């Protein structure tokens, strides 16, 4: 700590060794006026695992990008190993021994693992690539750090866990001593997460320092030595992990008490709303994405799909909502076939859809909030008047939805792009919930939105289900699937590996085994439960 600096409460004093990374009074104002960091002090000690937590938009990623040289601070100083640094690009940060694993992987899909690892720093002889050496070096660091990869595999064909190991090796290959991991567990199964954690511990044993961004408080408790909480662009405090509880961290993150559990009245299962029979899908590359998937969804229940991303969930949702043709099979909503229909025909069958990618499929960003709210019904009364749209009705409807769903905006005529992520999602939720659906397909409904908006969306989902809507929930957040669903099906590589009628009694570890295809229920047992 600098002399005269006032340490925040709970700050762990390290007197003798300077912190390996120290940020002082960092401000970051983006050209569009967004202030992402407001006077952040942040320090990391050599050899520790430091967790950085906070809601979306709290400024965590911006802070890490500043350390990694991707962003320049508007004000403030960056010290690495006690020396002030001015990074102009990631290159400079890499040279200073800092490596970063980004949330969305930074890999070149058509390159091999080894080619990705040496990218930008290829071994050469007379200007030509030495591919053999790249492979050997990859194998060597892979063994040194216990991060198993296949150097000659094409990245496009390897699973998420290995991709992440490739990312970590990429940083280590460049001599990183400090590793920044941006939400590394978001795409992993519980087992893969455990593997990652043991790899992180091994790295620290070998003298590396790890900064680890997450919003999963349980992981903070499990793996980190110290934790820093950020809220609204400020570092609220840093404390040793053993002194923190999940509740205290949540309170620090949000600034108020947070309901960690969703209150859910018991499910009253009604009639069968959706019936999916032997659905299969082969994609353009010939990969078998869905294989003979069958299940039913009943009125008044939430059916959750648990699976690691990329096991066919995205395609399943797109097929059921008319965005993608199926290869074979059937899907009926109230007895009406919905496969290979247009999205409008599917919607006319009283199906609503919260798409997983709200920016491309969920909203027209440059269109107004009001327009986005009626985009599925502008052609019907009361929004249609003759051949044109009755904008007065549209505005009234918009104003009502904005109020009811708590969308934070001064005016419904503003473009949706002007809203924050959480409020964008509320626009989608408002549209999909007011269309009076009998089946609601919600894909990643709370991805990338903050704790407050997440709480709201989850409550709304449960309320719809209690009112008698059938809900299909697909989420990469296992906790979300487990706390909201009445019934869970686990999927692995496009097949259903298990059905669990009582979500509450199921353990996360147990479910993880089905998500990884390690366990599989016998077909007869599943048939009864589907």
């Amino acid at each position, binding site marked *: 700590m600098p002399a005269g600096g006032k340490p925040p409460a709970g700050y762990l004093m390290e007197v003798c060794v300077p912190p390996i990374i120290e940020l002082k009074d960092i401000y970051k104002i983006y050209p569009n006026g967004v202030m992402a960091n407001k006077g952040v002090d942040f320090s990391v000690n050599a050899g520790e695992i430091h967790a950085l937590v906070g809601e979306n938009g709290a400024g965590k990623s911006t802070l890490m990008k500043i350390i990694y040289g991707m962003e320049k601070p508007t004000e403030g100083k960056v010290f690495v190993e006690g020396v002030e640094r001015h990074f102009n690009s990631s290159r400079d940060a890499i040279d200073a021994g800092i490596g970063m694993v980004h949330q969305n992987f930074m890999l070149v899909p058509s390159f091999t693992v080894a*080619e990705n690892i040496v990218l930008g720093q290829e071994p*050469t002889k007379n200007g*030509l690539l030495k591919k053999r050496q790249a492979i050997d070096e990859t194998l060597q660091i892979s063994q040194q750090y216990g991060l198993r990869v296949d150097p000659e595999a094409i990245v496009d064909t390897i699973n998420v866990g290995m991709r992440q190991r490739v990312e970590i090796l990429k940083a280590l290959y460049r001599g990183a001593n400090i590793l920044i991991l941006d939400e590394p567990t978001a795409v992993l199964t519980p087992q893969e997460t455990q593997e990652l954690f043991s790899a992180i511990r091994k790295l620290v044993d070998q003298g590396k320092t790890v900064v680890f961004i997450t919003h999963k408080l349980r992981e903070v408790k499990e793996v980190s030595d110290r934790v820093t909480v950020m809220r609204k662009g400020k570092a609220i405090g840093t404390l040793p992990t053993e002194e923190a509880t999940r509740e205290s961290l949540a309170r620090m993150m949000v600034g108020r008490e947070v309901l960690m559990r969703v209150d859910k009245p018991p499910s009253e299962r009604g009639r069968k709303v959706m019936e999916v029979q032997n659905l299969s899908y082969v994609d353009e590359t010939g990969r078998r994405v869905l294989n003979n998937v069958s299940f039913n969804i009943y009125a008044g229940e939430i059916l959750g799909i648990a699976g690691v991303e990329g096991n066919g969930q995205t395609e399943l949702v797109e097929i059921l909502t008319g965005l993608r043709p199926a290869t*074979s099979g059937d899907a009926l909503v109230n007895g009406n076939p919905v496969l290979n229909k247009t999205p409008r025909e599917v919607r006319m069958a009283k199906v609503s859809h919260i798409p997983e990618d709200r920016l491309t499929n969920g909203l027209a960003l440059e269109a107004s909030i009001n327009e986005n709210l009626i985009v599925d019904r502008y052609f019907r009364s009361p929004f249609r008047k003759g051949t044109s749209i009755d904008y007065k009705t549209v505005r009234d409807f918009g104003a009502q939805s904005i109020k009811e769903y708590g969308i934070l905006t001064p005016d419904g005529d503003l473009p949706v792009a002007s809203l924050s992520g959480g409020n964008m999602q509320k626009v989608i939720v408002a549209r999909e919930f007011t269309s009076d659906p009998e089946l609601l397909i919600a894909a990643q409904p709370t991805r990338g939105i903050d704790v407050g908006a997440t709480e709201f969306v989850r409550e709304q989902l449960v309320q719809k289900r209690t009112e008698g809507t059938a809900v299909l929930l697909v989420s990469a957040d296992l906790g979300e699937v487990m706390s909201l669903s009445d019934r869970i099906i686990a999927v692995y590589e496009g*097949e259903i590996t298990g059905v669990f009628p009582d979500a509450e009694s199921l353990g996360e570890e147990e479910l993880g085994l089905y998500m990884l295809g390690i366990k599989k229920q016998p077909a007869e047992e599943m048939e009864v439960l589907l």
Partner: protein
Amino acid sequence: MSFDVVLRSIFSAAFLASVLRISTPLILPALGGLITDLSGAINIALEGIMLVSAFTGVIVSAYSGSVGLGVIAGVISGILISYVLGWFHLHMKTDIILAGIAINILATGGTIFLLFVLTGDKGNSQSLASGTVPNIHLPFIQDIPFIGRVISGQHVFVWIAFLLTWLVAVYLYRTPWGSHLRAVGENPDAAETMGINVNRTRMIALLISGFLASFGGLTMSMAYLSFFQREMTAGRGFIALAAVYLGGRKPWGTLAAAILFGFADALSHQLGSLRVPSQLVQTIPYVVTILALVIYNLREQAIKRDRQRKFYEQQQAEMGSGGGL
């Protein structure tokens, strides 16, 4: 009867030699198109670059009396034009398609205007004494029957085209720069975070494509013909882009596709001797381009269907054996 004549002439050494000659101004810009396409900044200004370099080469060689200077000036002009395109796209953030269209229009109008200013003629530069590049006669090989007549005596650009195809292949797949270029095209963020400068890489790709396309333009005015003619590239810059895709975005594939289009072009010249309306015959290269792309697409779809069919059969077999879910 007259078809016999055509058939016989198609399999003659002279015809195959002409295929090579006619393919050259397609191969060279196609290689340029390939490099920019792989870098993620597609260059649709190949046409304009070819026109400008064809024009510059003729003018400089006519006024300096030196073919070498003409070629050098033509290449520099092509690189400069692609620098302008890169500057608008990468620094001014213009849409590269719009900037490319602007350059093509400017090149068409600009070359005619300057031609008129310099020669008083809006059609061609025949009043100027511009030079042509030499033909290469291969000793010994030219004495080999048939083959000798196909490959010996070709102008130097034919050889340059094949040499550059090889160099482009080595560059893209055997050097770190090629690896960086492909990485930038596929995942610019990945490249950026590994310290590769995305804009610089794309600019280099554009400059290389300008270099390659300008050889294509020079082939037109200083080898294929010995003067500049208005709009003489006649869409070759666009056909070159089609060759990139037909060639599976690979150097040798692109070369093969460009030769296929060259073959169609040569064929239309042969058929000109028949009593077929010349307007119809002249459409052959373009029709072949469209057909080739359609066939390419149908083949892709067939491969996809084939995979799906295999999946069905496999599934049927599994069900037959009582596997089930």
